[in-house]
């Protein structure tokens, strides 16, 4: 028996003393002490105070805390009674996906209890043991100032973020994110918090081979273990071919996998799923499964995949749902068609050619690039290589599912609830009305939860066993079995004249999609479709080919392919400016698009179909460039006191999209409740970025109703209506606009009902704050309560409910420019990012403080991609750094000392209240800005990620 004090209360536990303290705390109900790293002592989600000192509870043995005092994050205050620290974190906007926000709140509380006036260095030190992926650390410094001010003056003195649109009460104002109190206080929020006590556990046996047939699986010993419920293999699972991308149906991705395949295509691929009554039993059973593999030669790079006679990752027959080529039979005759291969099904042609390991391809352009290059004063040509990068959400992939009265209930941490439902429907054979997907709060997605990576298997396991089943990825599985950022080889040829005019651009992009084709076309396509439209250039051409390989899978990642295309193009542009002797800034200003410029290049850049040719809409690009250049003092040479350190500056212009015009679709339903409050049900999936808050704010301003009288229910497939999901920067624009439509429709119904009840013309009715209708003619006033009470009285006209549906062909494109100042040690190759400025046109920032945090978060993340992050595979295709420490994510130590996010004020005509997207675009600028700054500092072009000291030394000629 172990006795200790937890949050001031004496507790005793009958627990094995060699178990971890966190396990004991979970027994006590302190579930906000979470685990993000499987006891690596890295992420800090498991932080508690042990006798007043922050420690990782996963690294403390239960038996060591006898007689100790333990304090956990949930002790700080509940969502109705927040502490000063918790409130300041919310107000500063840092409570985003928030999986470890309670732990961060605990650390900040500890800091202030020990030092009421902490310096910036002290804040940095306190947060040095916690990994923040979503918001970066910059606004934590602001939160510290807010705490100081609140404690000292009883109110905040500092500006939290600039505010926009003074005529509105909610939109553009700094207001707490609606889910922030729940998240920061550590209340139930995530999938793991909703697991039933009788739940079974599932683990997955994964392939040790990069490429092999699974000829035989003997599960008899495993199945003989008590507690084992079911073992699912390729030999007893549904014969359904699909793929994992959560995209609009029919998808521009080949269907090329089953739940479990008879051929494994990467180290970590699924071989068997084991369901048992306890996790320990499931793991023990996994170890007893005997598999007979037939290893095959593998390919790991696009160069290997495209080589003549390369092993084929998919060697089964190809099928088409539509648009099959006439010679398909002839084509299939060249494939092995081995039953173990399965088959590849294209919903429509994507220019795939599995005989050459090509999953998809696209080619196109405008004008005549060859002529442009021939006539140019200078031409540069270079290849830029990007690395394989993991999303590293704090909450690893998890799913809990159960059967209830013949329906499959799925608790999912997903960006795409409706696509989860559809794909699980395909796998189980259940119709969609028999499946209920409940999106909980999402502890970090960044694109990885746009793929259906665990819900298919978990849902099927519950369906097949009738039991509640929990599946939770280990951190290692996040690396080896999830989607990652596609490694790409971006070849750019660019020509220009001495006056700085760019005359021709050619991009050849070869992308590595890994073993499966989820997002094969769309992610790499963004490397062209979200970069070439930055340029006012009449001659542009692209060749895009996506290859299958046997690396860990690739998929959606914040920014899609844009960061990689931007890296290639903006580096090449800087190289061209250098070659022509033109100032890079002047070249940018001469060549960027402006409002009204017709983007002919988009015609060939649709997602598997012809793209929309539109003109440039609202555009804050020029202002971002000019303001950023002023801030960083472009053209001024900085010198270091140490001759080994050289300082340079660089920047890149950037763009993204706001959803997919003509493809995306969102819905919302607004209801006036019986007391005059409003519930708005949205199909949207808030993944921590504040989408629910956006929906509440636009509803508030349209209905003239205070925020506290509006509740948003989202991501629940039973109660909401279809939404394509949170990806491609669609949330604010599509789901936000759907809420605008629903709220506007409800407003019209309320006005109509008020006119009816007052026996006046609806034209004389107007909405007034706070939630009432005023007659401009008679001065009569009806509150929302009066209106709904009468309308639902039994003799009235019924409940006031208004749906809103939004589709569009309009494109609201966010623009921006990111700037870096770096110091490079020419002796050791070390790089320090001294300054990083992110300037972005996000239209109307509906949640300004959250917008800044997302810019900071994405920028720091992409600094990590540029300088540190890289999944390394050995010669067998095994990822050798599948843990947080060796992988190398940026934390507070890596954050630039001078880090600024600036919102460029642009009012977009199509966005909800003028808003555009904010977060994805912020991933696009760091690589070229830093790459160009490194060149400015020491004269070398680093043409591959990550830009390591070793690569810099090699380019400097210090090593060969």
């Amino acid at each position: 028996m172990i006795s200790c004090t937890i949050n001031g209360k004496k507790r005793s536990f009958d627990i094995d003393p060699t178990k971890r303290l966190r396990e004991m705390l979970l027994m006590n109900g302190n579930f906000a002490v979470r685990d993000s790293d499987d006891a690596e002592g890295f992420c800090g989600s498991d932080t508690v105070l042990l006798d007043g000192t922050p420690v990782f509870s996963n690294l403390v043995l239960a038996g060591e805390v006898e007689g100790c005092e333990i304090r956990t994050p949930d002790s700080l205050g509940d969502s109705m009674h927040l502490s000063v620290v918790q409130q300041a974190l919310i107000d500063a906007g840092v409570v985003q996906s928030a999986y470890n926000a309670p732990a961060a709140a605990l650390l900040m509380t500890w800091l202030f209890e020990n030092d009421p006036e902490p310096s910036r260095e002290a804040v940095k030190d306190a947060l040095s043991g916690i990994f923040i992926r979503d918001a970066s650390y910059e606004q934590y410094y602001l939160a510290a100032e807010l705490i100081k001010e609140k404690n000292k003056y009883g109110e905040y003195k500092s500006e939290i973020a600039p505010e926009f649109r003074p005529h509105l009460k909610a939109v553009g104002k700094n207001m707490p994110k609606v889910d922030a109190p729940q998240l920061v206080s550590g209340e139930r929020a995530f999938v793991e918090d909703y697991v039933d006590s009788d739940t079974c556990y599932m683990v997955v046996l994964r392939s040790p081979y990069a490429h092999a047939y699974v000829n035989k699986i003997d599960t008899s010993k495993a199945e003989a273990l008590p507690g084992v419920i079911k073992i699912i293999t390729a030999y007893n699972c549904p014969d359904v071919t699909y793929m994992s991308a959560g995209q609009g149906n029919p998808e521009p991705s080949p269907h090329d996998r089953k739940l479990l395949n008879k051929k494994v295509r990467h180290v970590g691929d699924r071989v068997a799923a084991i369901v048992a009554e306890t996790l320990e039993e499931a793991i023990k059973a996994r170890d007893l499964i005997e598999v007979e593999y037939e290893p095959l030669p593998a390919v790991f790079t696009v160069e290997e995949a495209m080589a003549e006679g390369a092993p084929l990752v998919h060697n089964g027959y190809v099928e088409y749902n539509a648009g099959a080529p006439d010679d398909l039979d002839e084509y299939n005759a060249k494939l092995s068609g081995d039953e173990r291969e399965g088959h590849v099904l294209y919903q429509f042609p994507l220019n795939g050619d599995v005989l050459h390991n090509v999953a998809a391809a696209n080619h196109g352009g405008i004008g005549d690039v060859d002529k442009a290059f021939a006539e140019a004063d200078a031409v540069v040509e270079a290849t830029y290589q990007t690395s394989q990068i993991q999303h590293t959400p704090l909450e690893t992939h998890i799913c809990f599912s159960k059967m209830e009265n013949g329906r499959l209930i799925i608790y999912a941490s997903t960006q795409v609830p409706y696509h989860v439902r559809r794909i699980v429907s395909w796998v189980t054979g259940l119709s969609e009305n028999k499946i209920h997907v409940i999106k909980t709060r999402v502890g970090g997605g960044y694109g990885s939860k746009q793929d259906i990576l665990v819900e298919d298997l978990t849902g099927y396991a519950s369906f097949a066993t009738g039991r509640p089943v929990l599946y939770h990825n280990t951190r290692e599985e996040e690396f080896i079995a999830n989607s990652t950022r596609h490694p790409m080889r971006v070849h750019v040829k660019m020509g220009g004249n001495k006056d700085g005019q760019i005359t021709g651009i050619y991009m050849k992009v070869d992308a590595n999609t890994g073993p499966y084709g989820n997002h094969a076309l769309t992610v790499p396509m963004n490397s062209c479709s979200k970069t070439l439209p930055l340029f006012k250039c009449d001659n542009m051409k692209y060749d895009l080919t996506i290859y299958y390989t046997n690396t860990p899978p690739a998929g959606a990642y914040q920014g899609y392919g844009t960061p990689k295309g931007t890296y290639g193009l903006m580096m090449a542009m800087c190289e061209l400016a250098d070659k022509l002797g033109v100032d890079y800034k002047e070249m940018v200003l001469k060549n960027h698009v402006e409002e009204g410029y017709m983007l002919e290049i988009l015609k060939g850049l649709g997602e598997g179909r012809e793209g929309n040719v539109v003109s440039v809409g609202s555009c804050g690009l020029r202002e971002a460039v000019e303001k950023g250049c002023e801030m960083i003092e472009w053209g001024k040479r900085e010198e270091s006191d140490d001759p080994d350190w050289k300082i340079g500056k660089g920047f890149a212009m950037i763009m993204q999209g706001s959803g997919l015009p003509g493809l995306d679709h969102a819905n919302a339903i607004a209801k006036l409740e019986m007391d005059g409050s409003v519930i708005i049900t949205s199909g949207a999936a808030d993944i921590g970025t504040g989408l629910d808050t956006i929906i509440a704010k636009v509803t508030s301003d349209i209905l003239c109703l205070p925020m506290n009288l509006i509740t948003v229910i989202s991501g629940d497939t039973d109660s909401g209506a279809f939404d394509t999901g949170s990806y491609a920067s669609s949330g604010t624009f599509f789901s936000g606009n759907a809420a605008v439509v629903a709220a506007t429709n409800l407003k019209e119904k309320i006005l109509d009902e008020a006119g009816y009840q007052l026996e006046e013309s609806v034209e004389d009715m107007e909405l007034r704050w706070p939630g009432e209708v005023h007659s401009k003619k008679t001065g009569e006033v009806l509150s929302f309560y009066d209106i709904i009470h009468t309308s639902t009285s039994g003799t009235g006209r019924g409940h006031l409910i208004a749906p809103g549906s939004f589709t569009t062909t309009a494109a609201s494109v966010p623009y921006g420019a990111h700037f870096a100042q770096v110091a490079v040690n020419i002796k050791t190759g070390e790089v320090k990012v001294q300054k990083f400025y992110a300037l972005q046109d996000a239209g109307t920032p509906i949640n300004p403080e959250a917008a800044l945090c997302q810019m900071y978060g994405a920028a720091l993340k992409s600094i990590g991609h540029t300088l540190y992050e890289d999944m390394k595979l050995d010669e067998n295709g095994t990822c050798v750094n599948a843990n947080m420490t060796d992988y190398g994510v940026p934390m507070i130590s890596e954050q630039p000392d001078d880090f600024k996010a600036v919102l460029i004020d642009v009012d977009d005509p199509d966005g909800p209240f003028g808003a555009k997207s904010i977060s994805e675009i912020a991933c696009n600028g760091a690589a070229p800005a830093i790459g160009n700054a490194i060149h400015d500092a020491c004269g070398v072009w680093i043409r591959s990620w990550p830009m390591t000291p070793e690569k810099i030394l090699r380019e400097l000629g210090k090593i060969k």
Partner: protein
Amino acid sequence: MARELIIAKTVAEAVAAKTGSATFVAGGTEVNRLGSPNDADVLISLKRCSGLSDISTDSGYVTIGSMCTFQQLVESAETPEYLREAALFMASRTKRNMATIGGNIASLRSDSYLIPTLMAVGAVLEMAGKDGSSNRIGIAEYVDGNEVGSLIVSVTIPSEAKVVSKRYANTAQSHAVLTMSASLSEEGIWLDGAVKNVGLLHFCDLEKAFRDDPDISEEKIIEMVRSCTGLHTADDMFGSDEYKRYLIAVTAYDLHKRLTGKEA
């Protein structure tokens, strides 16, 4: 998976409990972490062991109890600056609150935070014997494999020494590819390092080169390390063989320059 936890209250208790299948647990950041090589049946926790967390100064030497955490080293006024600097190489404050000097030495990691510095100043370890005796050995001797598995009671180092160090890692929290420390004594420079996946090294050839010719050129040092057959670096995820050798050379040269005041 350990089957038993023993909470030792004294050094004698801890030592007595140490059998072949048992291991000591100090701060827990090494033994309890993901991927730890530890597979002991019995864990002997030292957290309640009396007398292992003190720092004291006597006759120009500082004696640090083996259970002193990195953060204690950072905060104690008695900690020599050169050791404080090495302790701060561990970037995570939360981890510094847990990890101990004794644990860091005993784990003998090839990316050790502290051992290069402790080797450079010739730290002396007090070891507790099974029979209740104690003996003192130099840290280099411990690193060579003597007394590994025995309980480190304390570490004694000079209060003042001319020591400089440098650590290279992908990020501040990553494992270091190279940590190198240099000290200057009457005999000349002492150079020690931790090279990831290679080990804890005493760079005597480099010391000799600097002692023989204090003005030796950087190019010569680079060439010397590049061609050194006794250095078993290799290509791995932390960098190429050539990169590591280059880094060792330029760092050694730089540390020598800083120690001897020959900085430009």
